[in-house]
């Protein structure tokens, strides 16, 4: 029997899983024929865990113990803006863990973000195993191209916790391009416009017969379909406030009902041009009377309230085209990825910006998972029938004096790549050298994402300036950063301690694996 490796699109809102069958990628549905699965994990009172569309139903009834949009928090520090924002709106409890990390408290248990994502991955793995009738252990997992090192590392950890050997962390737009160009023998320059639930990516690629070269990538990890929902929520809440004087946003329970209705309204308005919103019993007035919310959202109104979000994506597109030294007219095709790209406002704006209609016949919800399974197969075969030349999305930097940083590796550099930099000791008898590593486009450290603080020791002890330490920064094919150091004169590798990292230790991963393996996911149909 052939070895099987699966491709998983681990999305902010929805996930999808694919395998290659007879040389063609196919999406594997679950027992109830669902092809995409809400990235929602719900912990029930009796210890049962639900994942997917059945868990999503619990967002309102079991709000405190149901986790959604975990991808917005994965790989972030507790002090980051995204975490603060989530604390304000999420019904589940977000608390601080060791080393500035983020933990979720579900009843008496604490979960790291990779542990939550690992439960979604476990469900994807179970869907394939159920379909094939045997175990699978290898996977390619996709991430937004603009994910930084912390987010990639955390996603990889999630895979390991779920009992998967993660063959590759693959960029979502690259996966989509692979799925589009695979076996088609085309030579084209394309743009992949990927608007997901929580993130936006644009990648410019050159596709040859057997080569997929990413020329540039740009993105915004704070922009996605969720933000469109938020606009509708604000509109509904304001409307209700005007009608009744009650602010629904003050109650997390009402907020969840609003959120659910907003997502549905967005889909309806995109499909039908108008959405009727009816939320029964959203709250009670001071006298205890149960109240409903009724509203009608027209497309023109929806477009007005989201136009600035759409415009923001094109700022990012400008940046990507500029990095690739191209203009929109140089492109042969535009591919749309992600559920929100079904919205007419996106399709018409994209057509206007790129001066060409987006490619038809590509399923924006499934194309990424399909690309991931193609790459998974290709890595297992290692025949080199096609190869991906991808890039690092962010400039790698080291901290210098006074809160500034120095560039080490530019954004849009092909990976894998490495660069070394020498440091000398500046005190007599110095035993340690500390280096802070960042990713971002500003020379000010505070405006970049901190990857970690590395402390090197174990080199010779000598007078200041006499010891030279060569630090090597490597970005591997997963886009993950590795930092090592050696004493230049002796060639002796120095030992490295990492301080200040939001990541999990080996020991934490092992105990999380045990916990994950022992968790039983309920196989109960979504209503």
């Amino acid at each position: 029997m052939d070895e099987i490796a699966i491709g998983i699109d681990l999305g902010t809102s929805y996930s999808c899983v694919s395998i290659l069958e007879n040389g063609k990628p196919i999406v594997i549905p679950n027992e109830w024929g669902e092809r995409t699965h809400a990235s929602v994990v719900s912990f029930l009172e009796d210890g049962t865990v639900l994942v997917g569309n059945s868990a999503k139903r619990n967002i309102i009834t079991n709000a405190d113990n149901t986790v959604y949009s975990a991808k917005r928090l994965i790989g972030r520090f507790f002090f980051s803006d995204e975490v603060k924002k989530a604390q304000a709106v999420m019904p589940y409890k977000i608390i601080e863990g060791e080393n500035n990390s983020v933990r979720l408290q579900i009843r008496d248990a604490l979960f790291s973000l990779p542990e939550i994502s690992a439960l979604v991955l476990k469900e994807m793995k179970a869907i394939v195993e159920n379909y094939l009738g045997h175990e699978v252990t290898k996977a390619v997992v996709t991430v937004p191209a603009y994910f930084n090192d912390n987010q990639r590392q955390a996603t990889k950890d999630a895979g390991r916790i779920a009992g998967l050997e993660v063959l590759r962390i693959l960029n979502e737009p690259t996966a989509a391009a692979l799925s589009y160009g695979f076996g088609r023998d085309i030579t084209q320059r394309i743009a992949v416009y990927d608007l997901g639930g929580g993130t936006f990516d644009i990648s410019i690629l050159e596709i040859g017969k057997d080569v997929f070269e990413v020329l540039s990538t740009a993105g915004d990890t704070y922009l996605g379909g969720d933000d469109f929902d938020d606009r509708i929520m604000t509109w509904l809440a304001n409307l209700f406030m005007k009608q009744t004087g009650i602010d629904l946003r003050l109650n997390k329970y009402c907020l969840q009902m609003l959120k659910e209705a907003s997502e549905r309204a967005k889909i309806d308005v995109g499909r039908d041009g108008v959405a009727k919103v009816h939320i029964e019993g959203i709250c009670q007035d001071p006298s205890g009377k149960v109240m409903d919310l009724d509203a009608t959202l027209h497309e023109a109104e929806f477009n007005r309230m989201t136009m600035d979000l759409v415009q923001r994506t094109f700022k990012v597109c400008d940046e990507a085209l500029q990095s690739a030294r191209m203009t929109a007219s140089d492109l042969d095709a535009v591919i749309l990825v992600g559920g929100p790209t079904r919205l007419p406002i996106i399709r018409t704006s994209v057509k206007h910006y790129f001066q060409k209609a987006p490619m038809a016949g590509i399923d924006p919800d499934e194309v990424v998972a399909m690309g991931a399974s193609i790459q998974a197969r290709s890595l297992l075969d290692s025949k080199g029938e096609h190869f991906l030349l991808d890039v690092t999305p962010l400039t790698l930097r080291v901290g210098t004096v006074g809160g500034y940083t120095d560039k080490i590796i530019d954004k849009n550099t092909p990976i894998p790549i490495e660069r070394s930099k020498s440091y000398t000791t500046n005190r007599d008898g110095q035993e340690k050298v500390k280096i802070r590593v960042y990713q971002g486009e500003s020379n000010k450290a505070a405006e970049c994402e901190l990857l970690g603080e590395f402390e090197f020791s174990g080199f010779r002890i000598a007078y200041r300036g006499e010891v030279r330490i060569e630090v090597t920064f490597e970005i591997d094919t997963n886009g993950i950063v590795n930092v090592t150091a050696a004493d230049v004169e002796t060639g002796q590798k120095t030992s490295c301690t990492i301080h200040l990292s939001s990541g999990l230790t080996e020991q934490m991963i092992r105990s999380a694996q045990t916990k994950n393996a022992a968790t039983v996911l309920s196989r109960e149909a979504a209503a």
Partner: protein
Amino acid sequence: MSEPAQPIDDAFEIEAQALAQIMDELDYFQILKVAPAAPPSEIKLAYYRESRTYHPDRFYRLDTGDLKDAIGRIYKRINEAYVCLRDDARRTKYLADISGPDRQKKLRFVEASEQELKKDKEQEIGATPQGRKFFMAGLQDFAAQRFASAERNFKMALTYEPGNPNYKIKRDEAARLVR
């Protein structure tokens, strides 16, 4: 048009190991196997050609860690070469760098960062106000052929910045001319 990639056999392994050993002595044109005057389209083709042979994904399933390490070293350098040579400005500077006397030191292209440029400038005229003051005075003496005075000023500058190599060069030069 693409030629088939070299099969992965014993001969290939020996070749790859040997290539990984000598990477530090090759310039980027040698790494991509292109002529220094090659047009951009040829550089891209060369990059694709070398990727077909050395892309790490081709070796993903191999058990031989040594060969994988060698491939990793080679391919990272291929990417480094491509990044430099696909950009006209970088390529022109690189070609000048490796055509000069410091060729061996400049085989790996490093863009001077703002920090480094500042450091160069500091080394040239000094990082401390007092050091700079005496050094500038020394330069004036030197230009006016007052070598003894110049030597004193350079020595004074060195008391503020004992490690400045430029100060040392000028002091020695002045000292030589005094005698």
